[in-house]
């Protein structure tokens, strides 16, 4: 599965636009991590626990999108966008969406 945030590919032809595919994921860390993060927040610096949390969550959302795309017979997803919104303290929703297409085999 080719995943790209370009709108078209220079050397490949799109045979068919199948439709929008999307994946989302809401995750949170356990309380210990939240406490560590809020302590770290007093002194500044990177909150590694939250960076990790959002990365895991992003991978999960991407996986869900790719699964959906392969389910409807696409072999590439173009024009992929990410969007993040925080739900409450310590939990965030990651949403990823793109256009599922069928590319001609080279």
């Amino acid at each position, binding site marked *: 599965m*080719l*995943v*790209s*945030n*370009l*709108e078209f*590919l*220079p*050397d490949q032809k799109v045979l068919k636009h199948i439709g929008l595919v999307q994946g989302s994921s809401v995750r949170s860390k356990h309380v210990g991590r939240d406490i560590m*993060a*809020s302590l*770290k*927040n*007093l*002194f*500044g*610096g*990177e*909150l*590694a626990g*939250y*960076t990790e949390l*959002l*990365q895991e969550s*992003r991978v999960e959302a991407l996986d869900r999108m790719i699964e959906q795309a392969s389910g409807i017979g696409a072999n590439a997803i173009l024009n*992929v*966008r*990410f*969007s*993040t*919104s*925080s739900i409450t*303290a*310590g939990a*965030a929703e990651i949403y990823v969406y793109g256009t599922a297409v069928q590319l001609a085999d080279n």
Partner: protein
Amino acid sequence: MEIILFLVLLVLGYCFGLLAERRHYRSIIAREKVMNSLPAIASRYPPEDKPYDQQLVVGSVVIGSDYFKSFLAGLVNFFGGSVVSYEGLLDRARREATLRMKEQAQKAGAEMVFNVKYETTSVGNSKLASVEVLAYGTAMKPVFAPTPSAAGEG
């Protein structure tokens, strides 16, 4: 008693925050010098000079402000004006995210990153700001295909 705790947190936040910020800027500047050879381009139109393989690359970071910065921001917010303490925070987060994206692209063997987009979200509680910046784009990896003339002869 509470005022003592407040002052202690303010001083600790100032010292450690300044230290963290300086260390981070040093690391950012050093890594940016290395990564300058791999440009991040915001154009939507990919180059067509030679064949490329694409790969989505992502870099993200969550950076927290410190107690002192949050307090300062609260003051500035009251009187109005530019909140310098948060400008630095966002600048660091954005440059760090860009660097992580580029590092991923370099690991994949890419020459450049196209169609770079940024996404910023505030996470954590409302009193102490922490911000997440996500940078993503398409890494262009050159394909070393046989040249047309060589292929024609074979």
